[in-house]
């Protein structure tokens, strides 16, 4: 379908004191070490975040009762330089196949054990379709998640 209005992609650039290989590894294999767990998917709290290490792999959360919730899939797996994920998460952190947005992460070597991480979350116009259930989770989860992030990141 044609979109005449496209919200700008979310873009972030950060410098990380780590090699691209390590940054890629922490972003993917280590996602569980930094992804938030305080919000709930459906009934049970999130226990684990997983990115399967291959193109076509799944990207999902495991709740404390063992249930798995898909968030999308791995579109491109190119360690240590590039990761492309389909983000099909609606406002309640449930997979909605009608939502197609993309998250791309590029890791560029800056030498001396540092790298630049260029992050982009794009095709956000497509979120309009999956947005209907988001209001509730905004109330319940986001404020506290962001507070926890800050605490963790600044410690």
């Amino acid at each position, binding site marked *: 379908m044609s979109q005449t*209005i496209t919200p700008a992609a979310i873009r972030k650039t950060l410098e990380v004191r780590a090699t691209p290989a390590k*940054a890629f590894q*922490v972003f993917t294999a*280590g996602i569980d070490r930094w992804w938030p767990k305080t919000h709930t998917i459906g009934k049970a709290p999130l226990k684990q975040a997983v990115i399967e290490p291959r193109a076509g792999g799944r990207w999902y959360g495991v709740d404390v009762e063992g249930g798995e919730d898909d968030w999308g899939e791995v579109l491109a797996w190119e360690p240590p330089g590039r990761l492309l994920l389909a983000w099909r998460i609606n406002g309640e952190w449930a997979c909605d196949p009608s939502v197609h947005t993309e998250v791309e992460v590029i890791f560029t070597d800056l030498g001396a054990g540092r790298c630049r991480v260029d992050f982009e979350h794009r095709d*956000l116009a497509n*979120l309009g379709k999956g*947005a209907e259930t988001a*209001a509730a989770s905004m109330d319940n989860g986001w404020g506290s998640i962001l507070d926890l*992030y800050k605490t963790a*990141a600044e410690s």
Partner: protein
Amino acid sequence: MANANQTKNAFAALADPTRREVFERLAQGPRSVGELASDLPVSRPAVSQHLKVLKDAGLVTDRPEGARRVYQIDPQGLGQIRAWLDRFWDSALEAFKAEAEKDDDDEEDEA
């Protein structure tokens, strides 16, 4: 400035299936009330009402075009949803950075 309430309004406005359809039609290009009504199984007054909710939520804007009003998606409206994600990623990437910069047990930093 988007705040939590405005964002909530935007989400709530899109909760109604007909309203979402109106919104999706407008995502394809600007339309008048008449064009939307002829395209959807709802009356013209109903379309007007849906447009009012979408407009109040900041999701669509309108402008006069000759004798009629033409509605279109307000990029700022989706921008509220975008702002919500933007804050999320800011925090998530901060946490990622902190984690990536932690010393590994078995990996020495370059001397």
